[in-house]
């Protein structure tokens, strides 16, 4: 008898998490929980101003502070060729400022002391003198005539542009726009800067052993293997003598992919002092200096046929990249996967241009819970679709339906290959659950009573799970992922993966994949990750890629192990391999199904009773290079009520329908969606990080950068549709970030819909009550773009 897969924790089981046991007892292992013998503590001194030439740094008092072991300046780092480091976008970034500071919060000095309080004291007595320069806080200022060149360190840099990029068919797009029968709709929207801000800040312990020459780095990172290679290349250390251990991560959300300056200095300090050095960032340091996200200005024109079919789009995006171009993204693309825009719609022609700008703000451009700037593209897409529907006078849902792609695979206008989906089914279900048909009457009736109701719809399919390796790499390393599986003689197993959990529950779900393939109960499988000495090389966990890549590798390695187990089964059953059949957990003789052996029997035989010529052991590894991204499809629809007197708004109901293919563990999928949708709500509602005209970061702590609590966060009512991925070995698609990517447009669309009858087409995020009130009062769009001086 085949085993009951759900019973043993296989595919589809709502298996409770194995990670929980340590977390609910306070036995997690986050970086700050580690104490190594002789460990010292580092603190980083940051620039209080945004743009200035450094005229002097006096560290003498810091050196004299009792308990201080070392004060490291940029000049000292330069002696080790570490004053600058490469970024993930092939730019350079100052590790410690030597010439000038380029954003508020930039790292200037690091102090290493006996304890963190002493290190902080010593930072207080360092005297830095600055010669201020005019700060630039947005792209318009960056391009203004006479603007100071922020990156005057770069030979040949004569302006503040850090990249330009284009894709699409310009000629045919322009031809369509020249057709006078087309209705052209245009819009400008701003996606403000936001910050992933996991509750646990950045943290490292660097431990250099001078006797063995081994460097062990304990790091809160989503990508330990890439970090190891990056450290080897930047610091010119032998890679086999570097071990990166990423233990439990207190969240990541894209913020924990890059290498940050203080990491470099902690490593340098531990090598120079030959002692372990710990650095724990504070929240303000995290918010003002580490990888921000978004900060993009969007313009789009659509040429629309009388029947509502979009015939061409013209897209332009300007990004504000801060002082260094350090976006974490695949090499080939300068604006991430922003060109995934309109991917779920049949748009014959499109032309997309983008330009990046240096400003005096923190660098970053990280994929904050998204697959490389997809959050921006899907937000703009769905905000713009709503505007188009208003302008051509068509129903919101119908307009999307008219433009949906229905035949798969479909090559999008900007070059992606969408391979599967059932969009109508998802949309129908979502509209039914929100009572779309009845809403219009409710909205009209409410308006007659002076109440404002709105409905917002967001539909999207995003490419998740980079690679393939032909097109996707990070600093040259191709974007595959890996798994290694070892079955012990007693049939218990250890799975080692190249990706890295930061709350997604890999230790629970990856075991379920092995269970599905081998029939070993999930409780008998230990999943290991995050230690580069003990796991195969992988690109890590971000961009919703773990299940599409490492998850696929896990299925593939389990199949390799099963193929070997089959040989052992044939040996034990004394038949030829061709006569052996498989059902979950058991091989049997085709002609005599009662004669069988379990996977445990085969595991035991692999070490105790191998046939002649068969290598002992039962283990293997797999490197998986996906043929394509996976393409989930998601519909989010929400209703809100806006208070016409104050502009305050409340979510009445939120419905999400997600098709992420096969769900390994539905409980985990729902949890991921809840989390992503809460972050989407946060961005739409009130989470804001901005800058004043002097480049001061407003939103530098959790009092100003308000992430929503249980009190504000609405309910999310979720439904599923399953269209398996045609190429993923078990039919899964990425899902971890869909809520965060598709959610914001649903909320903003709903708020705008509530006031659209006043002529309002846009309120930039976050939809603060003051902005909504302004839209109602003055019957106009409300921009969130920063004002220019004199405005």
């Amino acid at each position, binding site marked *: 008898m085949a085993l009951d897969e759900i019973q043993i924790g296989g595919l589809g089981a709502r298996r*409770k*998490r194995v*990670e*929980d*046991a*340590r*977390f*609910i*007892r*306070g*036995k*997690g292992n*986050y970086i*700050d*929980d580690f104490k190594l013998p002789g460990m010292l503590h580092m603190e980083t001194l940051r620039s209080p101003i945004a743009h200035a030439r450094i005229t002097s740094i006096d560290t003498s008092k810091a050196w004299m502070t*009792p308990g201080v072991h070392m004060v490291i300046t940029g000049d000292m780092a330069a002696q080790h060729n570490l004053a600058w480091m490469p970024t993930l976008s092939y730019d350079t970034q100052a590790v410690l400022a030597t010439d000038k500071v380029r954003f508020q919060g930039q790292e200037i000095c690091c102090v290493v002391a006996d304890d963190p*309080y002493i290190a902080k004291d010593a930072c207080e007595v360092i005297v830095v003198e600055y010669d201020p320069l005019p700060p630039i806080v947005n792209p318009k200022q960056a391009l203004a005539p006479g603007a100071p060149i922020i990156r005057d360190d770069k030979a040949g840099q004569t302006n503040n542009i850090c990249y330009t990029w284009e894709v699409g068919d310009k000629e045919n797009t322009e031809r369509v726009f020249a057709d006078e029968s087309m209705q052209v709709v245009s819009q400008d929207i701003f996606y403000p800067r936001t910050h992933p*801000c*996991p*509750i*646990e*800040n950045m943290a490292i312990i660097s431990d250099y052993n001078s006797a063995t020459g081994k460097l062990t780095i304990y790091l809160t990172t989503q990508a330990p293997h890439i970090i190891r290679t990056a450290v080897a290349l930047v610091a010119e250390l032998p890679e086999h003598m570097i071990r990166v251990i990423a233990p*439990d*991560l*207190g*969240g*990541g*959300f894209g913020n924990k992919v890059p290498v940050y300056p203080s990491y470099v200095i902690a490593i340098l300090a531990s090598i120079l002092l030959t002692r372990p050095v710990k650095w*724990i960032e*504070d*929240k*303000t340091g995290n918010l003002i200096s580490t990888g921000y996200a978004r900060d993009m200005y969007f313009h789009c024109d659509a040429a629309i046929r009388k029947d509502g079919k979009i015939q061409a789009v013209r897209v332009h995006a300007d990004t504000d990249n801060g002082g260094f171009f350090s976006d974490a993204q695949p090499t080939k693309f300068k604006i991430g996967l922003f060109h995934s825009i309109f991917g779920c719609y049949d748009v014959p022609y499109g032309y997309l241009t983008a330009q990046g700008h240096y400003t005096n703000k923190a660098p970053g451009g990280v994929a904050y819970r998204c697959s490389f700037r997809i959050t921006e593209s899907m937000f703009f897409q769905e905000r713009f679709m709503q505007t188009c529907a208003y302008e051509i006078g068509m129903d919101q849902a119908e307009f999307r339906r008219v433009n949906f792609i229905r035949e798969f695979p479909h090559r999008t206008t900007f070059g992606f290959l969408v391979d599967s989906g059932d969009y109508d089914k998802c949309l129908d279900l979502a509209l039914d659950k929100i009572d779309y048909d009845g809403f219009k009457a409710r909205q009209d009736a409410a308006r007659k009573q002076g109440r404002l109701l709105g409905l917002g719809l967001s539909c999207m399919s995003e490419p998740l799970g980079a690679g393939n390796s032909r097109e996707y790499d990070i600093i040259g390393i191709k974007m595959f992922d890996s798994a290694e599986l070892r079955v012990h003689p007693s049939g218990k197993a250890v799975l080692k993966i190249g990706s890295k959990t*930061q*709350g*997604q*529950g890999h230790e629970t779900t990856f075991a379920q994949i092995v269970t599905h393939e081998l029939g070993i109960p999930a409780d008998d499988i230990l999943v290991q990750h995050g230690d580069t000495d003990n796991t195969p090389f992988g690109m890590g966990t971000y961009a919703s890629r773990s299940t599409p890549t490492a998850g696929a590798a896990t299925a593939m390695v389990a199949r390799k192990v099963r193929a070997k187990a089959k040989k052992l089964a044939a040996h034990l059953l004394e038949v030829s391999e061709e006569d052996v059949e498989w059902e979950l957990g058991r091989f049997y003789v085709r002609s005599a199904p009662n004669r069988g052996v379990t996977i445990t029997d085969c595991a035991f035989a692999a070490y105790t009773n191998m046939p002649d010529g068969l290598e002992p052991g039962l283990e293997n590894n797999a490197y998986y290079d996906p043929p394509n991204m996976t393409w989930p499809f998601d519909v989010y629809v929400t209703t809100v009520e806006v208070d016409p007197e104050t502009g305050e708004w409340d979510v009445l109901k939120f419905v999400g329908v997600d098709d992420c293919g096969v769900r390994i563990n539905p*409980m*985990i999928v*729902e*949890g991921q*969606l*809840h*989390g*992503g*949708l*809460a*972050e989407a709500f946060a961005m739409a509602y009130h989470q804001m990080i901005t800058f004043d005209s002097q480049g001061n970061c407003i939103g530098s*702590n*959790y*009092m100003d950068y308000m*992430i929503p*609590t*249980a*009190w504000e*966060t609405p*309910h*999310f009512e979720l439904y599923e549709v399953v269209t398996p991925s045609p190429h993923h070995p078990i039919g899964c698609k990425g899902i971890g970030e869909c*809520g965060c990517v598709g959610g914001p447009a649903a909320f903003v669309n709903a708020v705008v819909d509530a006031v659209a009858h006043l002529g309002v087409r846009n309120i930039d995020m976050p939809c603060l009550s003051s902005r909504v009130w302004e839209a109602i009062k003055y019957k106009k769009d409300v921009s969130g773009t920063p004002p220019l001086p004199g405005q």
Partner: protein
Amino acid sequence: MPEFRTVQCVVNDEPREAEIEPRLLLVHFIREVLGLTGTHLGCDTTSCGACTVLFDGLPVKSCTVLGVQADGHDIVTVEGLGSPSELSPVQEGFHEEHGLQCGFCTPGMMLTATGFLEENPNPTEEEIRWALSGNNCRCTGYMNIVKAVQWAAKKMATSGISARGARG
């Protein structure tokens, strides 16, 4: 050299005594001096609640209390929930309802919930959400945290066990 002060307090039912700097924060006293690393430090500004402990039975954020202020008081940290053999209703609820992901906010969240349920063992959802509004979670979207607290309340009602769990 800094002056030191003696602190005597009860932590997780055990009397503890230490000489500490007056400026040492309670969260650092708990983590570094007592070695109880289940209490986490998130934001430094009393906002996120990752450092929440029970102080004489009430949830407080230990990043904004000095260690010396604990002198003569009773502290409960996550290590003081449940017993080695048995989870408290709140711990069990978080596991059963998938009320945690990365786990970093979880100890503070559970202590707030524990203090709250001791005061209000039969809360409405609105009361739970309000009670938790001083604790940030970046992973879960709170839906399952609310369910976890409801699960714990139900367990307390049916078993008679306190929110903090059976002692001993």
